[in-house]
């Protein structure tokens, strides 16, 4: 018999002995006992009306959504609809916001500052730098996200998304990943920061990291304008006018598909190399379908996802705007700091089939992909010394006329190769700073955040270098 007060160490040794006698079955017996009890209690409490079919609609729906014939077409159709709604629906609000924030408020602020007697540099930094950058990000980012997130969330609330993971899991398991990665990937097409957060649904840390690191290959909303513009201006114009629209569209879609392909390839590579580990336990539960509460979902998804991401982007874009304006207006010697930087980086840029302006733009616009185009235009005008265009040094801008934009860029030395490589680089480069911060928040690891930031960048350099070298070797440039 045990003593009145046994020492803890006795308890531990007693446990060890008893455990040895029991063998490995303890967990089995316990689970069995628990479930037997649970079943008995549930049975006593729950009444099923006799004869009535239960969960019938659910079963039918499931059979349809995962069927060999209809499963994939329905999936493709649904997601095409979501993207189409997002792009088409965001058009008008985006231009309205641009009209308001850029064409109306911006000049008003400038004249207000002038009448208040602000020195040129103060008005420049604050209004042309900080405000303009922020306004741009809001105008470009807000409308598509306000449409994409609620739509995606509705699908999620309804219960459809686990079925998507179920349908696609085989592809991901071949790449050493989890089917749920398809969901964070889809979310990434809206915004990569949100996509990274969405990886929380993946239980295994290893597979979660794979999903986080490859999320950037999903082209977020902020990068679509760059791709569309470049495709229209340089790819579409390289083919007969009748085909221009279709070819440019195909080019953009091609890049997106390339992104998806890269996701699988890089996932596979990661799970064979730095993320090699034991396969984790696969588990995927398919919950019952639930009718979504549409209004509530719209409200919470706006607050939850859209505004939070927007807030982070805004706070990032303000310092970016300050930097952009400043480097363009600080003169060292006979040229601005920006011009010096551009000419310094230019050789490297040309090697990659890009140029110094593009690289500098990507450096200063790390906070947000949305301001890449206006920054490129501004820097091109600045460095190429074009007069009569643009709004001044350090002031980002865009033009309504496609031809005018193309002229500027060509004056900056752009060729078709530049365009193609820019599209590739836009797909394969480091995540924006909001996303990098989010990755750190989710992983709490400097090491993996660095990998997630630098791996796409390194790959991007590699790809553009290869394309440029091949093009030059073939005498295409």
């Amino acid at each position, binding site marked *: 018999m045990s003593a009145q007060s046994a020492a803890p160490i006795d308890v531990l040794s007693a446990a060890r002995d008893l455990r040895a006698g029991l063998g490995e079955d303890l*967990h*089995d017996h316990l*689970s*069995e006992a628990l*479930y037997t009890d649970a*079943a*008995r209690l*549930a*049975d006593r409490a*729950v009444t*099923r009306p006799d004869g009535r079919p*239960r*969960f019938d609609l659910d*079963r039918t729906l*499931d*059979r349809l959504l*995962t*069927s*060999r014939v209809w*499963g*994939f077409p329905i999936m493709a159709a649904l997601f095409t609809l979501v993207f189409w709604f997002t792009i088409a629906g965001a058009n008008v609000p985006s231009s309205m916001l641009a009209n308001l924030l850029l064409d109306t408020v911006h000049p008003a602020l400038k004249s207000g500052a002038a009448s208040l007697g602000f020195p040129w540099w103060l008005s420049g930094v604050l209004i042309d730098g900080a405000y303009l950058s922020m306004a741009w990000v809001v105008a470009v980012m807000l409308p598509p996200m306000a449409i994409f997130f609620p739509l995606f969330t509705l699908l999620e609330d309804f219960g459809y998304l686990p079925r998507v993971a*179920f*349908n*696609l*899991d*085989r*592809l991901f*398991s071949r790449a050493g990943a989890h*089917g749920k990665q398809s969901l964070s990937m889809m979310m990434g097409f809206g915004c990569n920061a949100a996509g990274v957060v969405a990886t929380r649904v993946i239980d295994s840390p290893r597979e979660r990291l794979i999903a986080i690191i490859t999320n950037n290959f999903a082209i977020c909303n902020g990068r679509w304008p760059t791709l569309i513009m470049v495709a229209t201006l340089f790819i579409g114009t390289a083919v007969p006018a009748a085909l221009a629209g279709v070819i440019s569209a195909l080019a953009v879609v091609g890049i997106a598909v390339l992104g998806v392909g890269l996701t699988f390839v890089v996932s596979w590579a990661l799970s064979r190399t730095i993320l090699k580990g034991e396969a984790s*336990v*696969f*588990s*995927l*539960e*398919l*919950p*019952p379908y639930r009718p979504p509460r549409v209004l509530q979902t719209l409200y919470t998804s706006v607050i939850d996802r859209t505004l939070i991401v927007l807030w982070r982007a805004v706070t990032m874009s303000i310092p970016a705007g300050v930097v952009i304006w400043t480097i363009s207006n600080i003169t060292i010697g006979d040229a601005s700091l920006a011009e010096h930087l551009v000419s310094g980086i230019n050789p490297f840029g040309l090697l990659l089939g890009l140029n110094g302006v593009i690289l500098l733009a990507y450096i200063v616009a790390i906070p947000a992909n949305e301001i890449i185009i206006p920054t490129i235009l501004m820097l091109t005008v600045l460095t190429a010394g074009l007069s009569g265009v643009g709004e001044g040094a350090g002031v980002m801008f865009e033009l309504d006329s496609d031809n005018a934009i193309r002229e500027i860029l060509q004056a900056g030395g752009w060729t078709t190769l530049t365009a193609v490589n820019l599209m590739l680089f836009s797909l394969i480069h480091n995540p924006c700073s909001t996303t990098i911060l989010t990755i750190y928040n989710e992983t709490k690891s400097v090491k993996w955040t660095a990998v997630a930031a630098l791996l796409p960048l390194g790959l991007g350099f590699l790809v553009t270098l290869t394309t440029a070298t091949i093009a030059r070797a073939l005498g295409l440039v």
Partner: protein
Amino acid sequence: MTEHTGLSDTSSAPATLADLPVGQAGVVVALDLRGAERRRLLDLGLVPGTVVVAEMRSPLGDPVAYRVRGASVALRRDQARQITIADPEHKAPDHTAPDIEAT
């Protein structure tokens, strides 16, 4: 993968969950897994004696969703292959029969 018409064949290898055709039921006999895998499946209710029904297969062939204790759980083939099952004896519906939603 060969389709078995039922579990009553007399082949030497015991039937596994991977052999269960869609729409059919089987009783879990044993789990040939260890460690975390085993615990997770036990936690989900795949305890020996539980009746499971293969509900649907992914269009790409893997995984398959099984109804276990009132919930729908997807398992990959290499997991299902390590769960041996037997024909459920025909008996009056009880709490473990998944086609009657006890929960």
